[in-house]
């Protein structure tokens, strides 16, 4: 198991190198001159050339990439040429917001999806099952920005139950920084009022973000359980006279979870990507909205840093998913 993890971590290095190289090359090919953006209004061509030289944009791409790798190896993401803020500082500010949102959305999608999927499978071909199937398709088809606005109109404007935007009410100080996750940090500091506020602010964006994933996991769980229930050992147990609930939980569910768990792992990556839209609508100050701004201003260092961070998270999640596979299914663990 230890060797498996180590091997996977070592494998991450070339994968991330490839990812960075690809992003770097693509950024060079995308039209848009960062020097022109930096030089701003009224800039003369000479001034743009001066900036290009100053920030090394005119060096050969190999030199630029090498210089960047050297910086990254020292744990330095560099300074944004646009804002002159250290990119690492911005990432530290933004990443926890995205992680908190994504993890809660993932939780809703996983728990909700498995629960709904299981019930749909147990009540196979019942009205509930049909309802779930229709909603699953709808959940995948609905545009998240439309859904978000509908939720805002209903829960924030009409009912006034939940806040409209942001992570906390404007003016309320963030809890002391430990993890950057407000739910955790406010509990650690014993600020239960802040915890309650942070939780309320999370509900709408997290639910919006989770919708597509919830639908996917529900569908996978449902079909996986139905398939398992048709296998011989279930038929045997039913024949012996085991009550249904005692078969489903310990035997069927465990045998059916490999596929949904893989989906959950993949979903994590999709959620981080999907967070771009949700973060913009709910003013969630995460990496998604940071990335969008970076793209609009050709802020290369910021784009590369976000790519790298998301890449690392994605790779790490995949390792964790494999480990969970091992726990659920001992046959997989034997091969590790």
């Amino acid at each position, binding site marked *: 198991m230890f060797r498996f993890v180590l091997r996977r971590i070592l494998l991450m290095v070339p994968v991330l190198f490839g990812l960075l190289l690809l992003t770097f090359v693509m950024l060079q090919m995308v*039209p848009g001159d960062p020097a022109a953006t930096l030089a701003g*209004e009224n800039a003369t061509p000479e*001034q743009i050339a001066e900036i290009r030289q100053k920030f090394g944009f005119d060096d050969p791409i190999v030199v630029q990439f090498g210089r960047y790798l050297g910086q990254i190896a020292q744990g330095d993401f560099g300074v944004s040429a646009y804002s002159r803020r250290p990119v690492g500082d911005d990432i530290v500010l933004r990443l926890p917001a995205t992680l908190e949102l994504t993890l809660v959305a993932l939780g809703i999608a996983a728990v909700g999806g498995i629960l709904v999927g299981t019930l749909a499978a147990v009540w196979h071909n019942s009205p509930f099952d049909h309802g779930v199937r229709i909603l699953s398709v709808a959940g995948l088809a609905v545009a998240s920005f439309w859904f978000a606005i509908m939720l805002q109109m209903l829960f924030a404007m009409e009912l006034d139950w939940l806040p409209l935007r942001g992570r906390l009410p404007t*003016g309320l100080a963030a809890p002391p920084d430990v993890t950057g996750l407000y739910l955790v940090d406010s509990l650690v500091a014993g600020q239960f009022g802040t915890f309650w506020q942070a939780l309320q602010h999370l509900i709408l964006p997290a639910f919006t973000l989770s919708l597509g994933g919830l639908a996917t996991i529900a569908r996978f769980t449902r079909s996986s359980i139905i398939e398992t229930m048709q296998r011989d050992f279930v038929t045997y147990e039913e024949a012996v006279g085991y009550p249904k609930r005692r078969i489903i939980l310990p035997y069927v569910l465990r045998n059916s979870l490999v596929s949904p768990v893989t989906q959950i792992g993949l979903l994590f990556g999709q959620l981080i990507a999907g967070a771009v839209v949700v973060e913009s609508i709910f003013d969630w100050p995460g990496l998604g909205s940071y990335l969008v701004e970076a793209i609009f201003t050709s802020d290369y260092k910021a784009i590369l840093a976000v790519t790298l961070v998301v890449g690392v998270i994605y790779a790490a999640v995949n390792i964790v998913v494999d480990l969970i596979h091992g726990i659920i299914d001992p046959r997989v663990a034997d091969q590790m």
Partner: protein
Amino acid sequence: MKTSLLRSVALAATLMAALPAGAQAQDKPSEIVWGDTLPKGLDPHVVYDVPMQFILLNNYDGLFRYVGNPPELQPWLAEGYEVSDDALTWTITLKPDVTFHDGSALTADDVVYSFKRLLEMGQGPSGAFKPVLKPDNVTKVDDLTVQFVLDKPYTPFLAALPLVAIVNEDLVKEHEKDGDWGAEWLASNEAGSGAYSIDPSTYRPQENVDMMRFEDHFYGWDDNANPVDIVRAAPVKETSTRVLALIRGDIDATDSYLPTDQVERVEKADGVHVAQDESMRVMLIRMNNQRPPFDNKNFRKCVSHAFNYDGFISIILKDYAIRNAGPIPNNLWGAPADLEPYSYDIEKAKEFCDAARAEGADLDRPMEIQIQSALDQTTQSAQLLQAGFQELGLTLNLVPSTWAQLTTDAASVETTPDMWVHWVSTYFVDPENWIGQMYDSQFHGTWKASSWYQNDKVDELLREARAETDQSKRATLYEEASRIVVEDAADVWIYNTVQLRGLSDKVQGYKFSPVGSGGDIRWISIED
């Protein structure tokens, strides 16, 4: 984090102590949430865009400032100025007893340092000065006098001075790192003397920053009985969220680009209204005057008659815009009052197209117009023009793009697209900001001059205007240049913007100025 918490407490305590007795009696400092966009960094010599104007106006002071609408150029840190007859030497005297937020005195040294810093770093608004001012030619005469010696006569110099924030030299120098002029530090901190000081512990880029009223601001607060004590700047990115947040009372002001279809909705809601102010921001469709068939004047006139101006302004913009016949905003001096705008007239357009064909112009190739995907109006206007082209039997394709790409493409005739849509905003209030930098061929290669328009007579007029110190003479020169540029149909000029900002009714005394779009909080009073 502990230090920033302590700092917040200390700042709050200082603020409470600084508040006038009346305000303390009200037990709580007044505050508003300002939902306008924040810049990516706080350094006013690095970031130069409309959101930066908010930081510039509130946290910093310049030598001069624009106030009101039409914007009046007022001496601000300056007490007065003298200019030599050859318009080369500008001597500016400073007001005495101006202090920075840390209590130190603002002197000529700080002004010299600020200009040197701007020019040496070469970012931000330096482009307005670099062609005429070398860093070494900004010198201190005495503690309250600064002298600027320009390389060549440049009258818009004075109009551009409000762009430059005067920073606290000692404070910035303390934080310099590897010759970076303190840029990394100033990106997240503030070293100004403005009416509001930033609480750096609350700063999260593009997300939040709290500003505290600076009781000792040199201008004083006598003209504002109930100023805002705390401004929490918290941008709301999405239009729908922004409008809902205003109506709910989560924010007290939106940005000043409220979509026209939201105006009625805001006006109908309780406790909020929309401030409407004519600005100086011209929307236009550019044409690459050096690429066939756009190098043909008759064809450009054909295009100018193929756009449905009235339809765009009255139906799409619900009349929240004012038809602008040429490149200079109607409400600025230098814009000729008698200028006849191009009208939407397909018959006339056909005649001009035929004339262009007769002159050998090839109109059969599909033409392209680049739009900025994030800005709906660029798409809407391009689609309207596309409809006009269809009636003429011409093909116009819409190509999505971004601002970063457009500004890069403008570097050469070959890479500049056939057409593209954008606005020219007010950075400084002088025809130079519009016609001067748009149609003088010396600016070819910059996005502002991206029509690649070339007319020797216009070059001559614009250059003469730039060196002339008498404003009435300058106005005549700009008027003449405008008439020629419009007769040449260099571009398609559409409208001058009406800025629309949603405001809470408790915000009183909102004073709009096209420079900074009304983001100058010092004039605002709070009414509960």
